[in-house]
């Protein structure tokens, strides 16, 4: 029993590690992408610095990455992991494809959160003589914060699902546990344990995410 606990525990830590780092990296990549997508959009859609060329190229790249089946994306990105980390196997190596798979998702979430901002507010900021950078940093991001928090919550939950898949391809974590111990060794108790831990994790993150987002809205 304690052996099972140890195994489930260390798998949980691996999943948390994958999810945490891939969330951080996907936000680091996705946030600027989302901002660029929004500010290069047409003026009618609230673009600060419309650029149809950049916008359509970026938009297409994001769409391609988003429509790729994740399992294929991991395999395709294995060489990239090897290039960055020297290995394509293990928890750390999985963070690369996870981050890259989630980044376009984050970009779209950021873009749509920024689009929701009342254009009048941005016009007011412009009329007061704000530079574009000031508008982005001091107006757009703070104004969109509740939606951004909800978006990141959703990203984390998606990444928990993705990480289970990635685990099966050599990344470890709860997905790997469920498949190797639960499925291949016919040990349903491991399967159940892995699923329960994932469910609890998702539930917790959803609750905390909603709390933060609601708190931000209530303060307004």
């Amino acid at each position: 029993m304690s052996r099972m606990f140890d195994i489930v525990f260390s798998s949980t830590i691996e999943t948390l590690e994958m999810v945490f780092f891939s969330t951080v990296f996907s936000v680091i990549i996705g946030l600027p992408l989302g901002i660029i997508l929004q500010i290069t959009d047409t003026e009618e859609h609230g673009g600060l610095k419309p650029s149809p060329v950049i916008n359509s190229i970026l938009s297409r790249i994001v769409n391609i990455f988003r429509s790729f089946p994740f399992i294929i994306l991991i395999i395709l990105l294995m060489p990239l992991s090897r290039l960055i980390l020297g290995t394509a196997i293990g928890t750390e190596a999985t963070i690369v494809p996870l981050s890259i798979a989630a980044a376009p998702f984050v970009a779209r979430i950021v873009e749509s959160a920024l689009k929701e901002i009342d254009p009048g507010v941005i016009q007011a900021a412009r009329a007061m003589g704000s530079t574009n950078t000031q508008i982005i940093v001091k107006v757009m991001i703070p104004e969109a914060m509740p939606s951004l928090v909800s978006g990141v919550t959703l990203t984390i939950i998606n990444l928990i699902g993705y990480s289970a898949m990635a685990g099966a391809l050599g990344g470890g974590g709860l997905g790997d546990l469920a498949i190797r111990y639960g499925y291949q060794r016919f040990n349903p108790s491991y399967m159940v344990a892995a699923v329960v831990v994932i469910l609890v994790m998702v539930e917790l993150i959803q609750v905390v995410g909603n709390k933060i987002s609601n708190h931000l809205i209530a303060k307004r």
Partner: protein
Amino acid sequence: MEITLKHLRRNYGSLHAVDDVSLNIPSNTVFGIIGRSGAGKSTLVRLISMLERPDEGEVYYDDKRVDNLEKKALIDARRRIGMIFQNFNLFSSRNAAENIAYPMEICGMDKGSIKKRTEELLDLVGLSGRGNAPISTLSGGQKQRVAIARALAVNPDILFCDEATSALDPQTTRAILSLIKEIQKKMNLTVVMITHQMEVVRDSCDYVAVLDAGRIVEEGKVADVFANPKSATTKDFLSNLTSVHSSVVRWSKDGGRYTLRFRGSKTDAPILSTVSRQTGAIFNIRAAGVQIVNDEEIGIMVCDIGPDKEIEEKAIAALEENGIIVEEEK
């Protein structure tokens, strides 16, 4: 600061939103620009306030041309003007004081001075002690007060009001307008007030320009325009005003072919009786009242004149001789 517009033009496709507008907005006044929706007011204010560039024409603040500024100069110039809007356009992520602080923050003012100035401004607009209030907890009037404080934070030379009272009830509108007038005097501002409400022009403006289909159809001192409107658009605005204004009482729905306007001292004189005796005309009064325009009283009387065509014409001539403006409804 004086604003001069020279032959401004702005087209959206085939629509002439602003069509050859030339205007001189004197320094230190409240200048109203009135028009129906779609008349081009919003485009015009965006052109004057450097938010949009005209297709043709020039905009001058005093002697400085501002419609063709480079990016850096444009941002500097924008920091010298203030603007308030119909929907207030406050930052919901900031409380009242932080909203007022924003224009000072972007200019790189230090925290201490910002704090001090914010307190002063809250005081000025009558919201002392409400600095920590989240925007959503404020009423419409209070939101507009915060917006005014924010617009005045950097001591601008010009304040643009884009339909600033259109989302407010009549009482709040009056309070906000008197606040703007008060501040205008205190800070020697040039105020440009865009509106579709003649009440706003009547209660707060010194000058007015009437905009229709992208063109200025009439302009002048408010009292002059109210007493003697020339264009159909202006008359239309004024007639709406008359019908809704509480001091004009109409006791008959029919008739009322003539509208007589009495200015200033003539409001008191017994002109109607005098004319009636001289010419034998019979006046059938349908509605009457007094409007206060910029501290000047303008009397309005809607009536029919009888008994026949000949006497009617004589009576009108006599009235006009006495300085009364007679307008015939067609």
